[in-house]
């Protein structure tokens, strides 16, 4: 029998109010699984940082409000999360302000992180994978 993966997909406007919406949606998915509260908190932090990066940087200089697309899929004891925007891409982010701690925080929490352009066109896609049992330390 083919395994069915639980999946949450959410699209938000690339603006600050959308960031907690993504976090709450993720918690909703994980609360239905047997996942430790601290692991959920770690994933919430990492995905929040990815979304914040996208909100702050992806559409800087654009004259229209863009969107951020988040897909979280639970497969075989891990959670794969993709945060995708269709904005400036990575190269435009080097001169923007910030603490610069977002990606290191994600890297410390996630089992793996990949950053690249989406298959579908412009922008940036952050692909993260998290262990759901016992954390990723």
């Amino acid at each position: 029998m083919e395994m069915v993966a639980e999946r949450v997909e959410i699209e938000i406007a690339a603006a600050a109010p959308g960031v907690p919406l993504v976090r709450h949606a993720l918690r909703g998915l994980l609360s239905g699984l047997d996942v430790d509260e601290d692991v959920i908190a770690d994933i919430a932090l990492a995905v929040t940082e990815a979304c914040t990066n996208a909100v702050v940087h992806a559409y800087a200089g654009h004259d229209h409000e863009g969107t951020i697309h988040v897909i979280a899929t639970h497969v075989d004891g891990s959670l794969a999360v993709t945060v995708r925007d269709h904005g400036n891409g990575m190269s435009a982010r080097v001169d923007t302000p910030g603490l610069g701690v977002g990606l290191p925080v994600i890297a410390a929490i996630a089992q793996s992180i990949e950053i690249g352009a989406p298959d579908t066109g412009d922008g940036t896609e952050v692909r993260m994978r998290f262990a759901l049992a016992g954390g990723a330390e």
Partner: protein
Amino acid sequence: MTNGATNGIDVERVGDVDVVTLRGEHDLSTADDVSRHIESALGTATGLAIDLSETTFIDSAVLRVLITAQENAAKRGAGFAIAVAETSGHGVHRLLTLTGLDAKLSMRPSREDAIAAASG
């Protein structure tokens, strides 16, 4: 605890210290509001304590506000401390530890300790 608390920002004067309490979750969506409350408090008090003992979540946007607050307090000669207690959320402790800023921010283990430290 993840999302059961009511989010909010309270400011209370205790002696010569303004105490800014962050309840619940704070991130990019509330960082500007947090910053405004802190700046307002810094303008009138001789000391500033930021209480995170009822905070369940912060992200790097709020962390940036806290760092700026500590820098501004130092410039103005005001006392400053942040309460990060056992009751603070896992995400609060985690972010401070992962960034190494737990060693750079003036942190105390309770609201009372932070108020005492901020009052100089």
